[in-house]
C-alpha cells in the first residue's frame, strides 16, 4: 500500500525543490526527506509504474514511452560553434519518474582513483581541458558503498585486480553468467586478461517489494516490470515517499528558476500538464535535470544579475560536454547462445582502464564488456553481418540463424573535456512550449576516436581467441547523438572555471545546488550512473550539514 503522500501548495515555501527525479534527483529526494526536510520533486515526465512497462518495441522505443520526445522537444546539432545548427535528434534521456535509470543497461562500475586525479598524473592534453576533481576517490568511496547497499547492486568484490579499494563487499552475488560471458571469460583468459562478473544495478536476490531478475530479456531501453532493475523509481523514490515529507509531482516542466533582489533563488517555475504556469516556492533549489537540461535551465533562467545564465558568471555552463567514446564489435558463434535471455552484460574487463599515453600514443582508457542487448526488431534492422540482404529468403535465413548466435563486445571509454563541446540555446528552434530548444555542438577529441579504434583491435583479438565464426566492428564515426551527458556544470574550486564547488553549491548562488551528470569533471571510462548516484548521496550529506548549520536559509 502506498503511504499517505503530502501535497504541498505552491505558495508553501518548502525546504527544497528538486528538479528531476532520475539517478541523482531520486537519491537527493530520498536523502533530504529522510533527513527531515520538506521536499517537492518536479519531474517533467509522467509517473509510470511497473504496470505500464511492456515489451512492445514500437511503444517503448519507437514512440519514446520512457524517453525524451523529439516532437515536443526538438534539438539541433552542429560540429563547431561557427556553423548553423541543423534540427535533428541530438540526445536521448529518460523522461519519466526515475529518469534514465528506468531504461538504462544498469552497468554499475565505480570510477577508479585515476579518474579523479588524471590531470596530475598525465599532465595537460592538447586540445582539451583535462582537470583534477576537487574530491578524490577516497572521498566518494563511502557513498559508492552506500549506493550498492541501499539501491541494490549485484557483483563480486575483488574479482577484478584493477578494482579500487572498497570498504564493504557487494550486498548480493553477481547475476548468472550468460553464454556471451562464458565465451568472453575463456577468451580473455587465453590472452592473459582479467575478465570479471559485471557489477550490475539489477537484483540477483529479491528485496522487499522487489523481485530478483527474471531474465525476461527486455532490459536496455525498457522499464523493469518486476522492480529488479535498481532504478530510482524502484528504489529511492519509494523510500522518499515513505518518509511522508516528499511530494513527487510529475508532468511538471520546470523552465525557470526565480531569484530575488538579494541574489537568492526563491523557487522553480513550471508548466503543469495543462500548460498552466506555477511557481513552487522553496528555501533552496537542487537541479538534477541531467547534463543537458540542467545547463539549459540555467541558461533559460538568465536575469539582470546573471545575463548569461543563472550561476554562470564563469561562462562555462553548458560547456566541456563529454559523451564517453566507444563502439560495438559483433560476432556470430557456431552454437546458440540464446543471449536474448536475461539482462545485457554478465562479464567485463578493465585491463585497459588506464593506458599509458607514452606507449599507445593517445590519452584515454576504457572497459570492454560482453553483451547482447538487441530486441527482435532492433536486431533485424541492425544486427546482421554486413552484406546480408535486407529482405527475402536469405534475410529470413540469416535472422533465423543469427539471432540466437550473436553477441557483442561493447568498448566503453573516456571522452576529453573540450570547451566548444556544449549544450546551448538554439537561437531559432523552439520546443512545444515555445521555449528555446537545446543545441548540441560536438566534435570528438581525436584521442577519443583513437581510443575507440585501439579498443576495437582488442575486441577483435578477443573474438579471434574465442573462435568466432564471423565478426565485424561498427564503423568509427564522430558523435552526433548523446546518451551520457556529462561535465556541463562541472565541479571545481575555481569559480572562474567551474560552476559548482565540492558541496555541489553553485559558486554564484548560495541556495542553488546542482547534482547530476553535469557535475562530473572527467568522463570516467564509460559508465557514469554509479558515480552520479554516489555524488548525489554525498551532496545530500553536504547540503544537509549546511542547512542544519543555518548556512543556506
Amino acid at each position, binding site marked *: 500500500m502506498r503511504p499517505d503522500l503530502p501535497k504541498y501548495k505552491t505558495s508553501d515555501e518548502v525546504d527544497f525543490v528538486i528538479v528531476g527525479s532520475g539517478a541523482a534527483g531520486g537519491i537527493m529526494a530520498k536523502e533530504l526527506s529522510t533527513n527531515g526536510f520538506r521536499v517537492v520533486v518536479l519531474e517533467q515526465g509522467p509517473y509510470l509504474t511497473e504496470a505500464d512497462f*511492456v515489451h*512492445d*518495441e*514500437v*511503444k517503448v*522505443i*519507437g514512440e519514446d514511452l520512457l*524517453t525524451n520526445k523529439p516532437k515536443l522537444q526538438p534539438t539541433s546539432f552542429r560540429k563547431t560553434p561557427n556553423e548553423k545548427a541543423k534540427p535533428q535528434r541530438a540526445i*536521448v534521456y529518460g523522461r519519466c519518474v526515475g529518469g534514465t535509470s528506468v*531504461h538504462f543497461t544498469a552497468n554499475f562500475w565505480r570510477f577508479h582513483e585515476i579518474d579523479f586525479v588524471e590531470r596530475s598524473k598525465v599532465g595537460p592534453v592538447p586540445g582539451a581541458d583535462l582537470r583534477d576533481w576537487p574530491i578524490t576517490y577516497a572521498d566518494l568511496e563511502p557513498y559508492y558503498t552506500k549506493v550498492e547497499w541501499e539501491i541494490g547492486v549485484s557483483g563480486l568484490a*575483488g*574479482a*577484478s*585486480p584493477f578494482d579500487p579499494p572498497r570498504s564493504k563487499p557487494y550486498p548480493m552475488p553477481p547475476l*548468472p*553468467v*550468460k*553464454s556471451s*560471458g562464458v565465451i568472453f571469460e575463456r577468451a580473455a*583468459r587465453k590472452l592473459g586478461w*582479467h575478465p570479471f562478473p559485471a557489477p550490475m544495478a539489477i537484483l540477483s536476490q529479491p528485496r522487499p517489494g522487489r523481485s530478483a531478475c527474471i*531474465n*525476461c530479456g527486455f532490459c*536496455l*531501453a*525498457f522499464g523493469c516490470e518486476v522492480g529488479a532493475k535498481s532504478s530510482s523509481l524502484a528504489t529511492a523514490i519509494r523510500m522518499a515517499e515513505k518518509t511522508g515529507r516528499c511530494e513527487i509531482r510529475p508532468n511538471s516542466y520546470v523552465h525557470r528558476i526565480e531569484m530575488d533582489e538579494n541574489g537568492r533563488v526563491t523557487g522553480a517555475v513550471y508548466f503543469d500538464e495543462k500548460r498552466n504556469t506555477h511557481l513552487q516556492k522553496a528555501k533552496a533549489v537542487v537541479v538534477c535535470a541531467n547534463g543537458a537540461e540542467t545547463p539549459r535551465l540555467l541558461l533559460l533562467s538568465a536575469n539582470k544579475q546573471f545575463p548569461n545564465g543563472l550561476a554562470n558568471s564563469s561562462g562555462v555552463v553548458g560547456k566541456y560536454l563529454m559523451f564517453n567514446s566507444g563502439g*560495438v564489435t*559483433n560476432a556470430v*558463434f557456431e*552454437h546458440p547462445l*540464446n*543471449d536474448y*535471455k*536475461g539482462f545485457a552484460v554478465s562479464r567485463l574487463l578493465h*585491463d585497459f582502464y588506464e*593506458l*599509458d599515453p607514452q606507449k599507445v600514443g593517445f590519452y584515454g582508457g576504457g572497459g570492454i564488456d560482453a553483451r547482447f*542487448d538487441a530486441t*527482435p*526488431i*532492433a536486431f*533485424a*534492422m*541492425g*544486427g546482421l553481418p554486413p552484406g546480408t540482404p*535486407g*529482405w*527475402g529468403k536469405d534475410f*529470413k535465413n540469416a*535472422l*533465423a540463424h543469427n*539471432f540466437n548466435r550473436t553477441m*557483442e563486445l561493447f568498448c566503453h571509454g573516456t571522452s576529453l573535456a573540450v570547451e566548444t563541446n556544449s549544450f546551448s540555446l538554439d537561437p531559432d528552434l523552439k520546443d512545444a512550449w515555445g521555449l528555446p530548444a537545446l543545441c548540441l555542438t560536438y566534435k570528438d577529441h581525436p584521442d577519443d576516436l583513437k581510443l575507440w579504434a585501439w579498443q576495437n583491435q582488442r575486441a577483435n583479438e578477443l573474438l579471434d581467441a574465442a573462435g568466432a565464426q564471423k565478426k565485424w566492428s*561498427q*564503423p568509427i*564515426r*564522430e*558523435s*552526433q*547523438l548523446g546518451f551520457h551527458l556529462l561535465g556541463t556544470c562541472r565541479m571545481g574550486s575555481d569559480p572562474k572555471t567551474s560552476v559548482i564547488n565540492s558541496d555541489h553549491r553553485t559558486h554564484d548562488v548560495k541556495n542553488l545546488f546542482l547534482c547530476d551528470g553535469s557535475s562530473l569533471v572527467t568522463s570516467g571510462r564509460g559508465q557514469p550512473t554509479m558515480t552520479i548516484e554516489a555524488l548525489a548521496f554525498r551532496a545530500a550529506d553536504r547540503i544537509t550539514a549546511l542547512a542544519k548549520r543555518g548556512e543556506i536559509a
Partner: protein
Amino acid sequence: MINDLSRRNFLTRACGAVSALWLSAHWPAIVAAAEHAHQAAKSSAPPKFQFFTPEQATEIEAITARIIPSDETPGAHEAGVVYFIDRALTTFALDDQKTHREGLPVLQARVRELFPNLEKFSSATPEQQDQILHSLDEQADPARRHSRSNGVSSSFFQAVRIHTIVAFLIDPDSGGNRDGVGWKVIGRDREHMFQPPFGYYDKDYAGWQPNPAAAEKTKA
C-alpha cells in the same frame, strides 16, 4: 552518427537508444496497427481492410510475402502482416499513406514494364516478383537506401519492407506477429521469464574461478 545510421551500424553504442532514434524516425506510431492486426488475427470473421481495397491488400500482401517468405517456416503471410500495415495507414501514418498511394501505381507500372503479359504483381511467379522488387529496391537513391535517417520512408518499397519486419517481430502480446510465428522463426521463446543455463556455452560453465593475483596487474 545520425546522418548515416545504416542497418550496419544500427547496433552501435547504446543500441536501444540508437534504435529509439531510428525507429521513431521511421514509424511514428504503429501501436494501434499492431493491436488491429492482433484483433484481426483473433477474429473468426474475415477482417475488413480500412485503407486498402481488397485488390490493393492482395498486392501488398504479395510484397510482404517476398520480404519474409513462407517456406519450411512461417513468413509474413502467416504473421498477418498486411493487417498491421492497413491499420498503420488508417490511423496515423499519413506520410506513408501518400507513399502507398503513389507507390502502388509505380509498382503496377513496373510490373507491366518488366512483364508485359502480367496484370498484377500478385499474379507473377515468386521469381518474377523478386525481380520486380529488386528493381524497386535498386531504384531507390543509394544514399537514401542505406541511410534511413531522414525521418520519412520515402520509398514505397522501403516502407513496406520496414513495416513487414516490424509486424513480423513485434512482441506478440502487444499485437502483430500473429501466434508469435516471427519469434518462432528466429528462435525466441515466448516465455516471460528464463532460468540459466541460457545457451550452449554457459551450460557446462564450471563456476567462477578467481583471476591471477593483482600483482600481475599490467598496463598496456
